[in-house]
């Protein structure tokens, strides 16, 4: 059975621009929104929106540092997301393996009844 998927999480990583932001945070650690805006092909305003969505999904946290706000990836949440996604993929692998087994058994059965005695 599919575990109830976390909508906020999946919609947060479902957007290519947000994955870009996430990639940068993962590779550079704690950075400001302005720094991010300098490294992506979209506006500072868009960066802020993406950070807000990632924040709501629990993937990114923020902290005040002097006059700046710094953002970083929440490692625990990212690990959890990776595991959940792996579970979903594994579930389809199991279903496909079952389909394979059923179809191959049905085919073997059909062949046997087609040519009795061989």
């Amino acid at each position: 059975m599919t575990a109830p998927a976390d909508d906020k999480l999946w919609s947060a990583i479902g957007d290519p621009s947000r994955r870009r932001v996430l990639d940068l945070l993962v590779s550079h650690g704690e950075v400001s929104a302005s720094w991010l805006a300098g490294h992506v092909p979209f506006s500072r305003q868009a960066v802020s929106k993406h950070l807000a969505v990632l924040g709501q999904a629990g993937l990114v946290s923020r902290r005040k540092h002097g006059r700046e706000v710094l953002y970083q990836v929440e490692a625990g949440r990212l690990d959890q997301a990776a595991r959940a996604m792996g579970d979903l993929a594994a579930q389809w692998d199991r279903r496909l393996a079952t389909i394979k087994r059923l179809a191959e058994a049905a085919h073997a059965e059909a062949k046997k009844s087609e040519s009795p005695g061989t």
Partner: protein
Amino acid sequence: MSGLVIEGEVLIEAPVDVVWRTITEPDQMSQWFADRVDLVAEPGAHGYMQFGDQGGPVVVETVDPPARFSFRWNHPRGEEPVTGNSMLVEFTLTPEGDERTRLRVSESGHELLARPGAEKQRYADEHRGGWAEYLDRLASVLAKRRPG
């Protein structure tokens, strides 16, 4: 749920029509998907699937025997599955000789489906490795960066 894509593929030692029946006939589906399946493989048909003590409606989208079969579901919410609230499961069957079939499956949410064709293709290409791989990669980069 949006844009989520799971892709899988398996090579089956059986003709394409046998595989087609396995994925579309309710008594077969109840062996690999849900515990109980009430469904007629006709485009637009509404059915029901039971998983343990939970269940939900399912709507058939594409029926193109023996090549393509898709249905939409939104378990566990139980609302009527339409574009925007549900997941689309798509099967593609490709015969490889008389007794071998390549079966591909994808499960995707609404954001991806709303994209124009070319963009959808680019998006799919970008993530051929799948979401699990993407997240695993991020998690491992992060783990390497963390001290200790």
